């Protein structure tokens, strides 16, 4: 089966690990456990009619204590940028990380998600800012790792984009 490396990028505590765990194991914990380094999880999905094994690199959150190592990004077929709708600062972090990803990986497919849609009333990221992201060409999804809302769509979306973008001959089994 084709394997594709996908990096999870975003500020700390935006819910990267929660989204991966909800997707891979269908579990969720309210307890925040910071990620140090990277944890690699895998799950196969069907992108169209083709099965693909997603190697999900759940990277530590970007903040003043940890900066993403470019070596972690090498070889990624795509990435997911995660934001926390209740913290506007995570939007700024997402923009910076996306620039780093482009520099390191080139123009590979990516999808962004604004997590914590279950507490939409507390969001600091507003519609105007979301529209600005979309205007930059970003695919912006809304989701909730807590409720499982938008999680399958997120990973399927990036898998599909990757499969559409990469010719079969360059795929690594």
């Amino acid at each position, binding site marked *: 089966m084709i394997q594709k490396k996908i990096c999870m990028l975003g500020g700390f505590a935006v819910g990267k690990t929660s989204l991966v765990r909800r997707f891979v194991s269908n579990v969720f914990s309210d307890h925040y456990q910071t990620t140090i380094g*990277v944890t*690699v999880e*895998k799950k196969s999905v069907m992108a169209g009619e083709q099965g693909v094994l997603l190697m999900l690199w759940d990277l530590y959150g970007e903040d003043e204590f940890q900066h993403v190592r470019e070596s972690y990004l090498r070889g990624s077929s795509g990435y997911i940028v995660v934001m926390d709708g209740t913290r506007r600062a995570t939007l700024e972090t997402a923009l910076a990380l996306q620039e780093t990803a482009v520099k390191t990986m080139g123009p590979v497919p990516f999808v962004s998600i604004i997590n914590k849609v279950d507490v939409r009333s507390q969001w600091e990221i507003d519609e105007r800012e979301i529209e600005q992201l979309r205007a930059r060409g970003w695919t912006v999804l809304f989701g909730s790792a807590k409720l499982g809302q938008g999680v399958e769509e997120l990973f399927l979306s990036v898998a599909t984009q990757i499969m559409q973008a990469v010719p079969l001959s360059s795929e690594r089994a």
Partner: protein
Amino acid sequence: MRHQPLHSVPSDDPLFNRVLSTLDIAVLERDEHSGEFQLQGMAPEWWHMRVGPESCTMLDLAQWSPFLREYVAADHPAWTAESGTVEKSGAWTESDGQGGTVTLEATVLSMESRTILLIERLGSGFEQMRAIVQRARECMLAEDVTVKAHHKTETRLINQLEVSERTKDGALALLQYLRLAALVLDEHGRITFASDRGLELLGISTREVIGLKWEEVFPIHQQDRVIFREMIKAPSDRRTAGPFYINSSHPAWIELDIHRDPRHPGCHILVMNDRTELHALRRELNEQASFHDLVGKSPAMLRVYQLVRDVASVDTTVLIEGETGTGKELIARAIHSSSGRRNKPFIAANCAGLTDSILTSQLFGHRRGAFTGAVNDQQGLFEAAEGGTLFLDEIGDIPPPVQTALLRVLQEKEITRLGESRPRKVDVRVLAATHHNLSEDVIRGSFRADLLYRIRIARVQLPPLRERREDIPLLAHSFLMTICAASGKTIDPLSPETLHGLMSYVWPGNVRELRSAIEFAVISCRRAEVSLSDLPPEIVGTPGVPTLAPWIPLQDRDEKSRLLAALSDAKGNRTEAAKRLGVSRATFYRRLVELNIQPR
């Protein structure tokens, strides 16, 4: 160039193996041809659990670790790096194969043409670092929550402030629209707010009063300041003070409502009510209700007041007509006080019951030796009243010789003392009064017509009390206050029943009798309130005491018998008898003479 395999190094060296074991590090060398890695030396304990038996020294990275698979991919820059290059993979976490996880970090060493891969299990140091980062991030998240909460609170407060400001603006607009004159004082008496109308009322054109003490701003009299200060100190929540006179460029009279500020107990809200117009109306009303010492606001009395004002402005002789006790002398005093002669003497003389020689001497004076008993020169009342007013009461009783002399004085404005021949110039205004119908006296020949015309240039006719009953409560109240003040007694205002009794009586003795009745009642009263029974018996019609019929002088057939009865009751004391009848002593004497009653 092919180098010696790594097993040629002293991998069996016990020290080397102990060091690797202690550091939890597995050492592998990469075969540059196959790209496979081979374990060198003694493997650490975790290696056996994660990878397999020690004999398995060749590592299939693809099977073993997806992370390492990516890390050591063929295009990894370390494989082509110069000798001495060291590159770390960064930490990664994966399953330990026993249901738990293990966190590892790889290091690539490029040593000449050989490539060494060190895989280290991160232990307690890493866990400490993770815990620190965890705590730091939790703190940041908590701080974020706190900041958000503060921001939320701040937003709420700003919104509340805006609402409050809008409410305040609305209240201010309403205040201005209603033209409410209000000030707010802080606990030190400093002005913290002043409405436009408030400033206007105080005659202040700027808002620079904020922060000033009220004493610096209020243009009021010193005694009012004392009252005002006491009112502010008073403990009650609401007090009313005033009226205070505002001595500004636009003088005003204000009443103050002083409220304790419910929000700040030490502060006060002052609401100023403009009472200027009310004060003016009240003053006008007071002026209408009384005139000098005259009390009454009946139409008849108002006409009298106007007449007094009219005659006061000229210097003619005035004849004041009215029944006894109606206050003829008060009218004379009012005319004098309202005239240009007010600062000169006012002398009243009763002409009744005097012989012509005594009256002549009294009016014009005499020279020493002019008659028996004239031991000194004596000036008369005309001379005493020089520049002022001479009031001749009961002028109808003046004997004919004196009438002649008086006429001469009025015509020539000079008098001649008894016993002298040289006339003296006098400047005296004569006011005369009588209860007689002088026109009838002229017809009867008892009064000189020319004198009548001389003294009746102007006339003031005083109505009897029975013709202005509406003034009785006002007069009674006024007398009650005066008598109580003089006697030191405290008596409540007259009850409606008592007033009814007073108003039902005919008052033959007019106002004088009313005053006597009130005085009688105050003396008789044993309680705080004057009752009907405290009034003289003739007023309340007590059984056994005949109520006197209205006093109609010289026309009542029973008058003689009433005078005699009064004398009898008073045991011959004429003063007391006069008092009982509510007439002056002079009038009583005159009646006795007229009715030819010889007292015993």
